């Protein structure tokens, strides 16, 4: 159950943090349609986070609520991957980040749908549908921008370079993952990773973008080691809630 709590919290925090980043786009999109789309994706992720956080409080025996977990944990207790906390940058960078995440989410949630854990399986069945839309949206934009104007090509390539290295954390398998894979709770990251590679390569090719090459593979999010960006995100997320201890909203 401790493994399950940790694993579920990782998924929850990924969704919470990325949902928060997308919320920062409110009323700032390049078109009104994108104002709708970015909040829509953010809302899907927020919904996933809520279900998963609630589940964490049940599984780990603490009985903490979704709000306890979202608002009253400190940075070092957040288990999201570093990719999702990276700043939005421009629209191109946001779409590049979303492509890397959603190209993971689609095969990941598809595989998680047959988890022996009924709650994770149920979350995954809903999330896989949502993620397909997110992937389609991000891929469409990455292609449009990559194969758009010279400026947009350069911008989305730069955005991709800025976030690329962080993707490796998505398929990192530590002991928790290994044990849960063996138990049939978590999907094996390797085939999911293979699908990610195929999807991303196809989108980049269609977008006339170059796949970044890097020697660097940052890591640590799954153990609560983050980039310095997360602290500011949490200050904004948590300030009001922490200012009124015990209050209901």
């Amino acid at each position, binding site marked *: 159950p401790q493994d399950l709590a940790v694993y579920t919290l990782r998924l929850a925090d990924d969704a919470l943090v990325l949902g*928060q980043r997308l*919320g*920062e786009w*409110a*009323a*700032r*999109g*390049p*078109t*009104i*349609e*994108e*104002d*709708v789309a970015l*909040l*829509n994706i*953010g*809302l899907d992720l*927020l*919904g996933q*986070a*809520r279900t998963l*956080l609630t589940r964490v409080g049940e599984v780990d025996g603490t009985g903490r609520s*979704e*709000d306890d977990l*979202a*608002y009253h944990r400190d940075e070092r207790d957040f288990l999201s991957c570093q990719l999702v906390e990276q700043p939005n940058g*421009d*629209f*191109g960078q946001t779409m590049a980040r979303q492509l890397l995440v959603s190209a993971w989410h689609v095969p990941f949630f598809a595989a998680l749908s047959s988890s022996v854990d009924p709650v994770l399986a149920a979350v995954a069945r809903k999330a896989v549908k949502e993620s397909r839309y997110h992937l389609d949206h991000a891929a469409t934009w990455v*292609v*449009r*921008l990559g*194969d*758009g*104007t010279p*400026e*947009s090509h350069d*911008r989305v390539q730069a955005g991709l370079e800025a976030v690329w290295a962080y993707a490796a954390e998505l398929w990192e398998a530590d002991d928790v993952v290994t044990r849960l894979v063996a138990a049939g709770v978590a999907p094996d990251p390797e085939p999911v990773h293979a699908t990610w590679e195929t999807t991303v390569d196809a989108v980049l090719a269609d977008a006339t973008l170059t796949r970044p090459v890097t020697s660097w593979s940052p890591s640590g999010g799954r153990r609560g080691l983050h980039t310095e960006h997360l602290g500011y995100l949490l200050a*904004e*997320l948590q*300030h*009001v*809630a922490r200012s*009124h201890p*015990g*209050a*209901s*909203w």
Partner: protein
Amino acid sequence: MTVTEERVDGLTAAEQAAFDAVVADDGRIEPRDAMPEGYRRTLVRQIAQHAHSEIIGMQPEGNWITRAPSLRRKAILYAKVQDEAGHGLYLYSAAETLGADRADLLDALHAGKQKYSTIFNYPTLTWADTMAIGWLVDGAAIMNQVPLSRCSYGPYARAMTRVCKEESFHQRQGFEGMLTLVRGTEAQRRMAQDALDRFWWPSLMMFGPPDDASPNSAQSMAWGIKRFSNDELRQKFVDVTAPQADFLGLRVPDPELRWNDERGHYDFGTPDWDEFMRVVKGDGPCNRQRLEARRRAHDEGAWVREAAAAHAARRSAVARAA
């Protein structure tokens, strides 16, 4: 060979008669129907202003999206701001049925040539402000818009039906959020009262200037666009909202507010119309900030829109060549 017939306001006498009949009969004018030029212009201006209000209206609430104090409220706020963008889209589409172009309307907004509701030029300083906006501002908007869902121009009327349905949902959520605050801690209750204190009068101003200072209203009424006068709607809003404030245990910041048994309505004080005019003219607390934020989003998105256009052009050229 066509005989040139005399036209008034763009219409032949027969067309004008047909138009008048539809309006008199409470029917709907549709995009392909002949309509007076003044009617078309008035509608474009009104619908654009309405659409702009939805778009600018995302800002004061969007301001609290990253700071909402519970995940449930955060989700509600995402959905609400998203709905506002959606309303903007329907409304620009409705304007486009009258021959307007969304890009031109946005340019007019950005240039300060078209207006949006004055209410969005007030800042949201605390979480309670977002709840007060749901309760009061969406409440006032519904009061304004329900009659518009019976307005003589079909696409606008239908857009209003949909918009009002969502807004009454938002209004209930706002009221429920206020209720949670007044039933919460002392700090929360104070926050709720403060929000009401600051948003009450600006909400009353949402119905526009007093009837005797609203010269275009009569024509709009004759055309079946407007159904009630500004002052009628304002009275209705006060009649509905004052008891809600009582229920919340909050004090409406108007010493003149009291039930008048004889009239069967609440009496209430006069909004500060000088302040209203200052805000209309661009000197409200947030006019500059709102327009600047809107322009910045538009300008920073230019390269994205250009890329999408270039990409679409290239792909359709490829498709044609194939």
